[in-house]
């Protein structure tokens, strides 16, 4: 019982798709800055055809699931680091800036950790290791050629300034509480809500 004609008329087909796979878009890694002056922390990835679209997508995706003031993005392939899936290169180029990101332990988030100047990523990683405190104990270090890092513009609005409480759990707490109290005694509501959203209720 679909509600729209388009849905009602979607043909049911069982044969294979009659065109070939297109392959994937480019994976971009996204970092967000929660407040001005704080470090950029990894938010996740976004797949997009190019950096312009990547910023638009990331603003909509990561900029709307958490308040933030700025975004950084770079192609995943631009990462060189301490792990085999992000190999470094010693192909010499001009001396340029590399941004460092480090992850304390496996499972932790990568966080912005300064920058170095180098002529290739191997040199940048070596310099990052001497520059970072406690480098030997870090689980992972990334260096990214700053040329590949795109960011939102200064002062650009990401988290919208309109009322967005409708998309946050806390936007409902007052209404929910009032409605429960019309049904249950306040003490019972307290007991019930004490369990609320604590990991798994």
């Amino acid at each position, binding site marked *: *019982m679909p509600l729209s004609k388009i849905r009602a008329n979607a043909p049911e087909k069982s044969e294979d798709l009659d065109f070939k796979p297109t392959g994937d878009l480019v994976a971009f890694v996204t970092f967000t800055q929660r407040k001005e002056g704080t470090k950029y922390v990894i938010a*996740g990835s976004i797949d997009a055809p190019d950096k312009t679209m990547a910023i638009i997508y990331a603003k909509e995706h990561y900029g709307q699931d958490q308040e933030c003031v700025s975004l950084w993005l770079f*192609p995943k392939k631009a990462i060189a680091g301490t792990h085999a899936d992000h190999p470094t290169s010693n192909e010499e180029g001009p001396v340029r800036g590399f941004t460092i990101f480090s992850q304390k332990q496996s499972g932790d988030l990568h966080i912005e950790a300064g920058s170095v100047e180098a002529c290739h990523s191997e040199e940048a990683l070596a310099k990052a290791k001497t520059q970072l405190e406690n480098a030997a104990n870090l689980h992972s270090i990334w260096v990214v050629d700053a040329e590949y890092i795109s960011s939102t513009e200064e002062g650009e609005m990401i988290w919208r300034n309109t009322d967005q409480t*409708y998309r946050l759990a806390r936007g409902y707490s007052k209404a929910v509480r009032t409605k429960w109290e*019309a049904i*249950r005694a306040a003490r019972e509501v307290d007991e019930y809500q004490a369990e609320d959203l604590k990991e798994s209720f």
Partner: protein
Amino acid sequence: MSGSANVGVHVDHNIQEDPEKLAEFQAKVDDGVLIEVDDWMPCAYRNGMLRMAEHHANSEIIGALPEGEWITRAPSLRRKLALTAKVQDEVGHGQMLYRVSQDLGKTRDDMLRDLITGKTKYHNVFNYPAPTWGDIAMIQWLIDGAAIMNQGTLADGAYGPYVRTMRRINMEEAFHYKSGEDMVLTLMSGTQKQKDMCQDAFDRWWYPSLMFFGPHDKPNCEQLPPMRWRMKTVSNDDLRTRFVNRFAPAALALGLKFHVVEKNEQGLVTSKRPDDKLRLNEDTGNWEYTEPDWEEFFRVIRGHGPCNAQRLALRRMSYEQGHWVRKAILEGSTLVPPAA
């Protein structure tokens, strides 16, 4: 929303894993060290995590379909905004989970195609219909509630990229659940017509939400790979018990009644009787209830649920219609750095 309770791990005994590496891997998992994509892991673990993340991603994007349909019919502007944001979140969860899967070695395009052609599955619960606004309230209260419960324990798993994704997703699931609770409360504090609509939706969704956690566990589930490797950390039955203990008393307090129902092929209730087994067992502290119809569960998994064909047809249509866009985008794509 969603969960991955039904994804098994196929251990191919022809693949001989290095016993030393395997022991090291197990020790890491036991010590609570998180596994990252570039760490050594057994083949069956890599495949199992890929299947689990892919199934979860499929469920997120299919799960958006029944709710997306209701955006234009939301009863107020605020509900419309919330539902739009919720559907956007679910599709976003899909994009994050496809990324986790892509990093384990399968392209997104292949995953989308396998979903459409039925080679891979999505969560059973999205094969049920949502004929009224009451269903939208129930989905967000019960199914997103069940999803938080499940995903909260998955966030305690061993695979780093999946765990990080669960933590991020759960912040949004909290909003889905809370807005669902608000909608159910609104309907149950409303007119008789609203209450009836809510009760009817509850009758349709109570059993799918119990089945959400998957079939009964095998008796040795804790020794089997999914739990031994902390791909999941709590058994299906334990999660279901927690869910009923949380939701049964809340539903009763709201004035909802529990029914054992018969449904037709369209997933609509044709007859119902009160669930006379529903009670709190004072000795165990757990709620007891009439079991779901597990035959129905397996029938729906095999593709014969009320909405299986409809969901896939819509997904396929949008994939086919979007083909030229993807082609145009990919052929014009720029700024891929030289292999670093």
